[in-house]
């Protein structure tokens, strides 16, 4: 599960960058009309962070 969490974190991080640079426009209000989708970038990075926290919970030593 730890590997899955890390892979997902990387995927969300990259998706965030792609949204930020305007390379992808899925689920955006303005589509290609805007070159940056900051809201989507932030949400993707928050999801990446949550996945990293999930990975952290998988890797910590059990009591």
């Amino acid at each position, binding site marked *: 599960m730890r590997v899955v969490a890390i892979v997902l974190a990387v995927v969300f991080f990259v998706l965030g960058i792609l949204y930020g640079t305007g390379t992808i426009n899925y*689920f955006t209000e303005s589509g290609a009309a805007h070159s940056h989708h*900051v809201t*989507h970038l*932030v*949400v993707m990075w*928050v999801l990446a962070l949550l996945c990293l926290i999930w990975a952290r*919970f998988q*890797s910590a030593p*059990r009591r």
Partner: protein
Amino acid sequence: MTFLQALALALLQGVSELFPISSLGHTILVPALLHWNNIDRSSASFLAFVVVLHLGTALALIVFYRAQWYAIVRALARSIVLGRLSSDRDERTGWLLVVATIPVGLLGVVLEHPVRRLFGSPAPAAFFLLINGLIMFSGEALRRVQQRARARKSKPIDRLSYPESLFIGVAQALALLPGISRSGSSMVAGLLCDLDHEHAARFSFLLATPVIFAAALLELPKLFSPQAHLVLVQAIAGGVAAGLAAYLSVAFLTRYFRSNDLRPFGWYCIIVGSVCFVLARKGVIT
């Protein structure tokens, strides 16, 4: 937008954001009812004004629940550093809030603008306000049936399961529809998960805080648009008024829900929603 209009909208936002009567629905219906045609809801200056109102509301919620938020954030940080879940109540509440925030975060980003484009006019807002009232009545009725059938007692927030928390989060996302109340739908979901009214309201207000605050922060760049300075005074006064109204509302509602239920708000939504829907269909409000 005049100063008085700004103040009235700020008070309306502060109160209706936390009362289960839909702030979004009211900010569409009230200006339409009063024929405030001078307000352009899509202008950069109005959007900047709305950002400040949301910031004021979110700050009021943070101040009201400051002790609980401090404990939750500290417990969450400790949990992440240690990399394990403990039986700490604040930590459990924190993770439940994180889980419940995910649906509205995702659905909000994907659906907010299309939904507002489709339903952001008085007739749909009035219709969904009516539905909001019916949701509250059905929620109360279902809860009574559930309690009679299972003879179960209410439980505190930290006894919610993660799927239940996710269910409350999904219910909260219904509020993307203008007229459906965020606090109303999440409270009804909380009641169906065996919370009592007081705990359902507290969980709903705690859940609203990160959502309102994040929405305001994401829109913060609009404050620095060239048109924003046109409404600077209105925005500052509006932010303070919305914050004060929100603080007083949450203080009132936390006391109210110790011994009362959602039905009075349900009646309000059904009556106002029906009247506004008829007026909108007849073209009296547009």
